[in-house]
């Protein structure tokens, strides 16, 4: 069995989750602190859109942006000699765009749940906003944020439609596990497909177990905190 799709999928998911995680929590924090409720609604809507749209539509927009014949794509080619389409980085971009809404919404929800008094207490103690974010807000919101991160990781791992459009199906470079399964089925090689499907099942199930562990832990630590 050719292991390269597994290797590519893991690499893509790992890099994209790092980008998605930080982008997601920063955007969530920024959106929570927006004064205008209306702007916050619009921001929520825009950032949730890739989750609701069919992946092929997201792929269309990505191609529309980064395609070699489009303004942004051409700009990148001319100024930096960089072509995004058909490269491994395109799989990362597709995975980030698709999984960001999950991270964003989970983080938003988790941040809004945190007791505001904790943050005020931090301010009265003279902590900078950045310290409050990392030492007070994040630890308090961690179970929700972690669950969101795991979901986003799983979603990035399973991305298919947008990836095929932007990154192509290049064996050994951009052929992720879902693309490999699709190619095997198209070729009538069911045995080969089963093997990849088995791997994806294991990975996804492991991800769900991890997520359940975190959400259960939230219940327990929550009770403990209040008891103090």
């Amino acid at each position, binding site marked *: 069995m050719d292991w390269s799709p597994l290797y590519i999928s893991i690499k893509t998911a790992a890099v994209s989750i790092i980008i998605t995680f930080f982008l997601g929590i920063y955007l969530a924090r920024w959106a929570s602190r927006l004064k205008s409720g209306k702007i916050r609604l619009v921001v929520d809507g825009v950032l949730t859109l890739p989750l609701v749209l069919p992946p092929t539509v997201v792929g269309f927009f990505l*191609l529309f942006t980064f*395609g*070699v*014949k489009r303004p942004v794509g051409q700009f990148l080619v001319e100024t930096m000699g960089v072509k995004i*389409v*058909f490269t491994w980085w395109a799989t990362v971009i597709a995975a980030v765009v698709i999984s960001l809404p999950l991270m964003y919404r989970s983080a938003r929800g988790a941040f809004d749940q945190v007791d505001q008094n904790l943050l005020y207490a931090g301010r009265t103690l003279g902590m900078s906003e950045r310290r409050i974010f990392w030492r007070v807000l994040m630890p308090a919101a961690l179970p929700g944020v972690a669950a969101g991160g795991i979901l986003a990781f799983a979603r990035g791992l399973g991305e298919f439609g947008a990836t*095929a459009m932007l990154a*192509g*199906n*290049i*064996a050994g*470079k*951009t*052929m992720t596990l879902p693309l490999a399964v*699709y*190619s095997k*089925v*198209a*070729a*009538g*090689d069911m045995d080969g497909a089963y093997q990849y499907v088995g791997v994806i099942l294991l990975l996804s199930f492991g991800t769900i177990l991890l997520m359940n562990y975190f959400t259960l832990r939230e219940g327990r630590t929550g009770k403990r905190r209040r008891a103090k």
Partner: protein
Amino acid sequence: MEMKRKKRTAVLLSACLVLAFALAGCGSEEETTPAAKTSAAEVTTADVTTTAETATTAPAASSDEIMLAAAASLKNVFEDELIPMFTAKTGIAVTATYDSSGKLQTQIEEGAEVDVFFSAAAKQMTALSDQSLVDTASVVNLLENKLVMIVPSDKAADYTSFEDVLKADTVAIGDPESVPAGQYAKEALENLNLWEELQSKTVSLGTNVTEVLQWVAAGSADAGFVYQTDAVSQADAVTIVAEAPEGSLQTPVIYPVGILTEAKNPNGAAQFLEFLQSDEALAVFEEYGFTAIK
């Protein structure tokens, strides 16, 4: 207050249900009108001989339509011209799915309910025939197509032959495992001793020939291999560099068509096949760049 809220929810839910049924009803209305057309057409049409048999029997639900599974490269000619022609002539509606012949073969093997299979290569038709899924006696080698190399139109100046594919950084080709266009391309490139060297380039495997065409048209790939008919359909975005050189392709690019043994509407399928072999249908195929095999 509670009662009012409950009543409002109930009204809203029933309105949604009614809307859903109405939409479903609209869909089925379109399917019942061809039935009326069929009985009228069968009485008035004299040229199609097989309808003489079906005219005497009461039209069953399945005689209204047939399911066609055809190679991706046939989509334009069927959707734009041939299917409307056929339906206007016989009153039989045609529902079609277009994809790589390999994918369609797999779907049929897994039980997809198809009446007619139109493949872009003999390989898939023979495979189904060997499994007794296609009625071998019904298979007709109908069309020929040409394998060509294409590049995005703005890069056309740099490429003149198949050998120039080595100049490209990224090449798009159908997956040889499942896409006939990919099979033919691989064979031609192997015979030209270019296949081995090509593997060191970035090669993106399309799951059907239209995907390959779109990758080149969008400029994502520097070069690609498709059928002449596909290249012609995107004449402004892609340019044909060259046809497969003489002798490089031993397997002729033949499109066979056949009827499935488990076809729900074998009569309709037979009528369709007869129509496809008629002079007017072959003329349309030639218009789109296919060559009719006499």
